[in-house]
């Protein structure tokens, strides 16, 4: 602090409290809505304080869901989301750490070309090439499968770059020592590189888990069998279906459950999350 200005300090606190409230407002409204019954909405405006139907609404959605909307119980959609998020996060980490190892620790013909092939994936977000990618997945028979949900999203230049950066900062003496001791490349990778990259892997995992859990367009397209619906994509189907007879309390209960796992990850692992966010943007 440069100088003591009490007025500015109070103003800063006020700005921050206002900001926190603004950021929390939609979630508070959703939470409150999810604790009421459908009839509470018909009176006009919704209440601002939680009602008594919290357990009832949430357990109903977890076990049964809204049968008329064609979506499965929320519990099942959450399991699907979890499988997809874990597959994407772990898959991305494995393939990108292997390719970064190959690019940094080996010299081989066409090494630069391989690097550029990975680099251009940065420039091809799934939204842009959506129609042909869907066709490829359909031709491979991967629609309505966990493989179809996760594999097309697994290739990632950012994760490869991150590991490349990490490996480049590791001292050369490590490789020399390993080679003098007679360790081959894979032994070096397993016993030295992997343990040294542990925190980077953890930080990246946090970011990628959130990325995977929050996927929307891709699951919406490749799943037509409700057994594979993910929760983020399922909400939209639910909101569409209840348009005729608004069941907002149930939709909002689902929305709260959809954001709970990733939000918990961010709040509980804030340090790793910030580290991951800053590193992947380098």
């Amino acid at each position, binding site marked *: 602090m440069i100088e003591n200005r009490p007025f500015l300090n109070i*103003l800063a606190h006020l700005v921050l409290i206002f900001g926190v409230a603004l*950021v929390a407002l939609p979630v508070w409204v959703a939470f409150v809505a999810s604790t009421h019954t459908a009839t509470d909405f018909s009176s006009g405006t919704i209440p601002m304080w939680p009602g008594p139907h919290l357990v009832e609404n949430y357990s109903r959605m977890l076990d049964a869901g809204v049968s008329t909307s064609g979506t499965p119980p929320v519990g099942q959609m959450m399991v699907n989301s979890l499988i997809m998020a874990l597959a994407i996060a772990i898959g991305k980490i494995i393939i990108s750490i292997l390719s970064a190892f190959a690019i940094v620790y080996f010299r081989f013909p066409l090494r630069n070309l391989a690097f550029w092939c990975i680099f251009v994936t940065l420039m091809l977000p799934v939204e842009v090439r959506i129609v*042909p990618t869907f066709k490829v997945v359909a031709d491979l028979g991967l629609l309505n499968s966990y493989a179809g949900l996760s594999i097309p999203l697994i290739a990632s230049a950012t994760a490869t770059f991150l590991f490349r950066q990490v490996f480049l900062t590791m001292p050369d003496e490590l490789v020399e020592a390993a080679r003098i001791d007679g360790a081959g490349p894979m032994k070096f990778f397993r016993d030295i590189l992997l343990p040294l990259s542990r925190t980077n892997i953890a930080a990246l995992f946090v970011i990628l888990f959130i990325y995977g859990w929050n996927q929307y367009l891709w699951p919406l397209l490749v799943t037509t069998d409700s057994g594979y619906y993910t929760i983020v994509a399922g*909400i939209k189907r639910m909101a569409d279906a209840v348009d005729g007879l608004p069941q907002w309390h149930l939709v909002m209960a689902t929305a709260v459950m959809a954001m709970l796992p990733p939000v918990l990850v961010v709040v509980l692992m804030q340090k790793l999350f910030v580290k991951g966010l800053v590193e992947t943007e380098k």
Partner: protein
Amino acid sequence: MKRTIFRNQLLPWLLLAPQLAITFIFFLWPAAQAVWQSFLREDAFGINSTFVWFENYRRLWGSAEYLNSMKVTLIFAVSVTVLSMGVALLMAVAVDRMLRSTRIYTTLLVWPYAVAPAVAGILWWFIFNPTVGIMPYVLGQMGIRWNHISNPDQAMTLVVIASAWKQISYNFLFFVAGLQAIPASLREAAAIDGAGPIKRFFTITFPLLSPTTFFLLVVNIVYSMFETFAVIDSTTEGGPAQATNIMVYKVYFDGFIGQNMGSSGAQSVILMLIVIALTVIQFRYVEKKVEY
């Protein structure tokens, strides 16, 4: 560059194989398909297609709908970027004054990053719902009639708020990091010379923050152009009357729902060129040119 390396020739290819395979099958091949599609025109039944050179691009250029989509994308991207960066900068400057409470405020401000864009869209859609939402009620008290289902400007306002809300936390974290990187001695020197807090902000803090600001500018434009698909789809679906039909949404809509492959392919190619340009700017310009 590593001085010491391993000499195997086959092993690196085996290590690269999974990533290269996925890249080719799900990235490069579909992208090539999109480029090829953009030069074809299918007949009404989708059986025969003829090579039409740049006809699809020419038609896009003459299409009022596509030009409108470009305009909508521009307004949308600029609004989201300015709104989310402005709010985030205000919060970051306020947090920068704090000593003990930095952590708690940071925790309370960063979690929206974890909320899926689709969920953010649904939440704001509910808040602004003309029949049961709280905002139309509050606005109604002030004499403003809110109905984003029929009013194009209000629909745009809604998607901008929902998209910007989700991005505040990201910008906030980077602004805080940027502010902490500015040496305190500079601001102290200015304070000794008699510059007040506002003058210090505009003559010292803000200029020194420019690398962060520029970086976030590019990131936010990319975000609002490509990652807000879910916000649009879960709320307005491009309507009313094309008012929120951003380019990414139009590619999807023309390709999947309209089944117009040639036009959708051409739009994909245009978007790819935009992403390539933004990526080049991010890597070339952000890293080197903005310095102090």
